[in-house]
């Protein structure tokens, strides 16, 4: 466990590496390979201030630090990603090492499309109500086209687009997309599995 590891590191002052059982456990519980987990550990400790690096396992990194990662820096869904993967009780969207691993695991190439679509749904669900309604879709499209005023679609175009999306994916015609419909539509989307990958 993390506490034992921290104690060992404090005693021996050895380089902060993951112990083998922890490494093996993470390999079993995520889709990452051994190399990827070690690399993730290195990157995670770099986000921490120097004093906390020994306890990297149990430390929490504030959201502002996480957003400096190159993959998230340019990502329009950065805030949603932090919110979805963070297990912080205080609601400040800070991430522990295990949350970080979870995030990398979902975005890795070997994650199943089931997992990817489940988390994609949660990321796109801006109001966290369990369905994608018109407001969620509108915010999603605005995220995609950019933040500036001139990069948004006009109201008429947005209406037309949302109508088309609902026509294609809303099976029970209730005006919202629930998880099953989302997973169904995304499983047949040729670009989804390719684009879901985060590289190191």
């Amino acid at each position, binding site marked *: 466990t993390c506490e034992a590891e921290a104690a060992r590191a404090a005693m021996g002052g050895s380089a902060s590496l993951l112990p083998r059982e922890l490494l093996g*456990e*993470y390999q*079993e*519980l995520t889709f990452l*390979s*051994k*190399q990827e987990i070690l690399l993730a550990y290195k990157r995670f400790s770099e986000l921490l201030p120097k004093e906390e690096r020994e306890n990297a396992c149990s430390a929490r990194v504030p959201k502002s630090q996480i957003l400096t990662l*190159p993959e998230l*820096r*340019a*990502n*329009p*869904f950065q805030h949603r990603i932090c919110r*979805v993967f963070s297990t912080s009780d205080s609601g400040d969207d800070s991430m522990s090492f*295990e*949350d970080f*691993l979870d995030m990398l*695991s979902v975005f890795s190439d070997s994650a*199943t499309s*089931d*997992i990817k679509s*489940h*988390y*994609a749904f*949660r990321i796109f669900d801006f109001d*966290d109500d*369990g369905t994608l309604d018109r407001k969620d*879709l509108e915010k*999603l499209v605005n995220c*995609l*086209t*950019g933040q500036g005023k001139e*990069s948004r*679609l006009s109201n008429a*175009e947005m209406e*037309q*687009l949302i109508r*088309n*999306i609902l026509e*294609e*994916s809303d*099976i*029970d015609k*209730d005006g919202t997309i629930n998880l*099953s*419909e*989302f*997973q169904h*539509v*995304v499983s*047949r*989307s*040729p*670009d*989804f599995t*390719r*684009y879901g*990958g*985060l*590289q190191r």
Partner: protein
Amino acid sequence: EVFLPEEPRPAAPVDFLQELPSYQSALRRRAAAGGTQERRAAPQSSAGLRAAEARGPEQEGGELAARPARECPLTIAEKRRLRDCQQADIKYISGWKQWKRTSSKSLKKVLSEVRELFSYLELWRRDIHSIEGKFGTGIQSYFSFLRFLVLLNFIIFILMFSFVTLPSIISEYGIFNSSFAKISPKNIEPHCTVYKPSGNMGLVYFYTYLKDLLSGTGFLEVTSLFYGYYTIDAAWLSILRYNLPLAYLLATFAYLALSLLWIIKRSVEGFKQNLVHDEDQFQSYCNKVFAGWDFCITDPHAARLKHRSLQYELQTDLEEERLKRKIADRTMKEKLRIYSLRIFINIIVIAVLSGCFYSIYRATVFSQENSNVSIGHDVTNLLVQYLPSIVITLANFIAPQIFSFLIRFEDYSPAFEIRLTLMRCVFVRLANIGVLLFSLWSQISYCATDECKACGYNYELYPCWESEVGQEMYKLMIFDFIIILAGTLFVDFPRKLLVTYCSCKPVQWCGLQEFGISDNVLEIIYGQTICWIGTFFSPLLPAIATIKYFFIFYIKKISLIHTCKPAARPIRASSSNFFFLVVLLIGLVLAFIPLGISIAHIPSSKACGPFRSFNTSWAVVPDTILGFPTGLQQVLHGIASEAFAVPFFMVICLIMFYFIALAGAHKRVVEQLREQLVMVRFDPLFCTPKV
């Protein structure tokens, strides 16, 4: 918790779709075979951790259909608890099942380690990753495609080398106590068998070597690069007899079949998507919106470009939809005008194509007539030899410009415009090679005298015509490589320097060039088609192709990083992968035609090559079959006869009709189920209060 777990509903909407007849019958078959009740778990979203735990202790006797913990969308701490739960259940299972479970787990671990090891061996992995990060997946698919071609050519080279070149060389030099046998052809006129290649003539000027290297004549003609070298009829290794002519022919068929299977295997994914979902833009909006963001982008500048391109793409699609509605409202008079305009423009296109073909034909005839006469300087001689290549390259450059200009008048929707122009360009490039070969053959089989007719081909000018064709393909390949190199050095880099250091308006308006994916892909597919056609006439050509594509990768990569700006109009990776492979497949099929005609129709040259003693190259196969035992001969004759072919064809047709009918029936069921889903929403029996 962010996501509140819902109560497992009696039938979630997507389960209705799992009641398709085919799925149900597959389930029943699985249950009957395994003797277990495996109900495929609905996505775990509808059951939180507590439900999973509740399910755990229930399944004591039967096979646990539980998913491994990492496939559940939970946090790591929760997954740990789930896994401990699952392991606790193992105690309730018999020893045999326990052993099966642990062995499958360790097998999966070993497989993943092996896969990780192999990923390190992948060629150019890091280069392609960095390109993906900076330029997106559209351009990355071009480089992956290039890597695929390098590997394909390398494998073809290994195939031809080990089955054709290596036995020849081994038996010729008597290594491993081998020997060879050359059977002199019987019933052949002696004048057909005269072949004196110039070869190495002792002391010559250095530039003669260079000229020979560029045009495949002289010292290169007698090496194992070309068909004429392989004159051995059989090689003996102690008591084993190696039939070289048969091996040559079979290796040719083998590399064609290998290319076909490999391309089909790679395109199967994209093919499925495009075939099933081709009915009017099915799901294209969902695909663009839900899968639109390229998570590989790390550069903020690239991200801004991606935003803009997504906005552009969405707006174009919406505009196209509005345009389609407008088109549907067209009056009769307008339709007539547009159709007559389109017919007229297509006639112009055909005229342009005929112009190209005719100029290639004339250039080839001119080149063949004048290259044997050493007129004037060697450089002019070289130019005359390269004339067909030059004309083809010019045609490949000019024709697409004309097409993209003409298509504006045809008033198609933008997406269809792009596709039609691309198809026309593809056709021009591939047909040019065909015209070149056709003009070569017309020269080769042109027979005026009786002696010539006795041989079947023009024995005076082309004593070894396969080597000639091989040389033409070799020249095409070399010239293609030179053009790509020259294009990068003399067009891309000066343009970049001009744009960086000169600030006058027209230069800045031109700007840096974009990396035109389709143009570059057509270029390398053109080169690959030449390689496929040429390998029969020049067995070591794939090696040259491998080296050529290897260097092109680095040239294109450097050109991309230093001189290109990202494209304003993106091409999606999924559709582009499928498109590249379809065009490659067209190239391969078009390569079958000239090869088929050469092998089966045109008489093989009697003065050189492994097929001297046969009428055509194909004749070695019936000859070998005659040497088989009579039973096998009869079986083979039966398979090739009409008595087998016609019933076989009818059975294939029946199977195809069956699958079409099945697909139609499934479609109807899906429609009915969709309607039922809409009605279910209002049925109070199924309604559950949403949280």
